[in-house]
């Protein structure tokens, strides 16, 4: 039987494991190879039963039930369930009134779908650099990107930390712009108790199966504050002919998962808090910063490296990062690069072919779209000196596993010489954003 059941438990971690020789050098790894597997999403008997129930119901009603249940959970006024997160962002943009040729401000660091959704709305993405601490769109840099063609600002709650919506709302209001949220990483994340997706004029959110709140495979949902925007999105679906509907199979899985979302959120928060506290005890590593009143959902957990605190600042930071990645992967913690090139450096924004013949970029009278990577120093810096834990922390892992992750980071932190040697050996390594762009 093909099953995702994990047959072997992890041993209870011991502090002395961090003092063993590095696995890269032949020592025992903190997490042995046969116990590294983690599952996501967590699929239970409740998901099966819901599927058995839903198959006997009208598919449209299953999707509507899901849409309504999740809309209430988020606290949004209006919602449209969609086939994907990209579709939801597209609908949100069109709904708030983005028109062909308009400009929409998005962060340079996000998943490519944030910017492709802008192109799908036949608008021009204008990329702005990130805040070096939160990694979200930097409000202090937004204002100078606003032109007479700007229609909306669409921050992304990167990795699950809500962007500074208060500052962005103030800018949007000052310039009569619409404020959208790309909440694709931010299920259950909130600012002062207000859930991501319900704060902007509109929002799009991916619900694909690698998100904290997954539906059965692929899906998304668009949220709207005002009825006029919701109606405009529905009208667009009718007039464009485009079919963005969610499958009832995806929705059925979402219904049963929604019941358990608060439980999984609590474990993710517990694990992230534990790891962040433990990383505070290292010199090289630090966990994500979470502003007061903000709730991070930890769809991903980005670890910042500070080589200078370990006397490694004479080495190029991306070489240190690469060495650390090799060492920690050998210990059984799959910390990696998530994204290696800012979005404006990806092929679709270099070639600007769009829908064909350069549309909608051809609507712009810009000679310079501002896509040169030199405009995004904070994004480049972050990419050079951080590593990301993705599925391994998204899944509600056992307490002993998060303890083991912390021990692995401590073990690397205790071995600066090994980092130095490995980083010095990597002479042929190119900086990551000069390599071919990857989507994740």
């Amino acid at each position, binding site marked *: *039987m*093909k*099953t*995702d059941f994990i047959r072997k438990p992890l041993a209870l971690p011991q502090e002395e494991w961090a003092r063993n020789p590095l696995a890269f050098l032949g020592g025992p790894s903190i997490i042995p190879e046969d116990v590294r597997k983690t599952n996501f*999403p967590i*699929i239970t008997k409740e*998901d*099966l039963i819901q*599927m*058995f129930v839903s*198959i006997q119901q*009208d*598919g*449209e009603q299953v*999707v509507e039930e899901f849409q309504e249940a999740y809309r209430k959970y988020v606290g949004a006024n209006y919602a449209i369930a969609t*086939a*994907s997160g*990209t*579709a939801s962002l597209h609908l949100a943009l069109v709904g708030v009134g983005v028109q062909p040729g308009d400009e929409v401000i998005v962060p340079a660091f996000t998943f*490519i*779908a944030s910017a*492709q959704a802008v192109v*799908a709305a036949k608008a021009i993405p204008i990329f702005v650099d990130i805040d070096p601490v939160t990694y979200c769109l930097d409000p202090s840099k937004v204002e100078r990107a606003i032109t007479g063609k700007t229609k909306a600002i669409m921050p992304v709650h990167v990795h699950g930390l809500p962007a500074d919506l208060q500052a962005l709302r103030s800018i949007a209001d000052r310039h009569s712009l619409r404020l959208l949220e790309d909440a694709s990483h931010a299920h259950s994340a909130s600012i002062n108790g207000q859930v991501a997706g319900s704060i902007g004029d509109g929002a799009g959110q991916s619900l*694909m*199966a*690698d998100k904290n709140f*997954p539906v*059965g*495979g*692929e899906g*998304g949902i668009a949220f709207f504050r005002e009825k006029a925007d919701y109606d405009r999105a529905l009208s667009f679906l*009718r*007039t*464009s*002919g*485009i*079919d*963005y*509907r*969610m*499958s*009832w*199979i*995806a929705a059925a*899985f979402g219904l049963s998962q929604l019941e358990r979302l608060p439980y999984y959120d609590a474990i993710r928060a517990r694990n992230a808090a534990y790891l962040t506290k433990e990383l505070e005890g290292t010199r090289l590593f630090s966990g994500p910063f979470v502003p007061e009143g903000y709730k991070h959902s930890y769809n991903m957990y980005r670890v910042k490296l500070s080589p200078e605190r370990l006397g490694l600042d004479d080495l190029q930071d991306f070489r240190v990062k690469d060495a650390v990645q090799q060492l920690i992967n050998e210990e059984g913690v799959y910390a990696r690069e998530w994204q290696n090139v800012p979005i404006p450096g990806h*092929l*679709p924004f270099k*070639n600007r*072919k*769009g*829908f*064909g*013949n350069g*549309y909608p970029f051809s609507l712009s009278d810009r000679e310079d779209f501002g896509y040169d990577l030199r405009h995004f120093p904070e994004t480049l810096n972050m990419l050079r000196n951080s590593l990301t834990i993705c599925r391994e922390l998204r899944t509600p892992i056992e307490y002993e596993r998060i303890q083991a992750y912390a021990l692995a980071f401590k073990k690397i932190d205790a071995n600066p010489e090994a980092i130095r040697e490995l980083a010095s050996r990597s002479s042929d390594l190119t900086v990551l954003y000069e*390599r*071919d*762009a*990857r*989507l*994740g």
Partner: protein
Amino acid sequence: MGETLTKPKTAIQKEHYFSLSFVLSRVLNSGVIMSIERNDQELKGLEKSIAKLTQTRYVSLFNTYTGALHGALWGQDIGHGSEARLAHPSEQERSFLQWLGISLVQNPQVPLPYAAVDVNWDNLGELDPAISQARASAPVLVLDFTGLGFGPVAAIAANDELVWKKAERLKIFGAFDLQTMWTQEESEPDLQPAVQFNYRLSPLVAACVKLSLLRRNNAS
């Protein structure tokens, strides 16, 4: 054909509940329900089933009929500013092509870019004649499985590898984006992505369509 925004006439019938529930349970039990999982077998399995059914070499799956239309057109370099002729365009097809910026023409000299086959429980057992006829009329087949009742789902089938490659390029995390993820190198730099949509299909939906196709000879 292609009015996928309307509700399918035939919902899933009771006699199929058990087999479909079983196949959904099997996929859920495997833990692999994400389209970009390296070890997914359901999407690959459906692609193979459709290739066999249509006797074509290349199949690309889509999460909607309009997504598949987009793939069929984009795969033949028919994009914004292009012209296309359709045999009997539905209202939805007319609207969608207009939205894509493609002009519909009636000139019979312009070849048909695709032929569509609507697959539902009523015609599931006798698809071969419709597929043969469609194959003879256009280089790309668009199969709309939405009428089976699993939600929007469609595919394109063609013998031209380039059509398939370009259609996959249209998808965020299509075959080439995934390849770049695994190898960290762009495998087709000359075939660059442009606008991209998430047209990826859920493995759970794919498994249901595959099961239906496997059992088509037993269908009414």
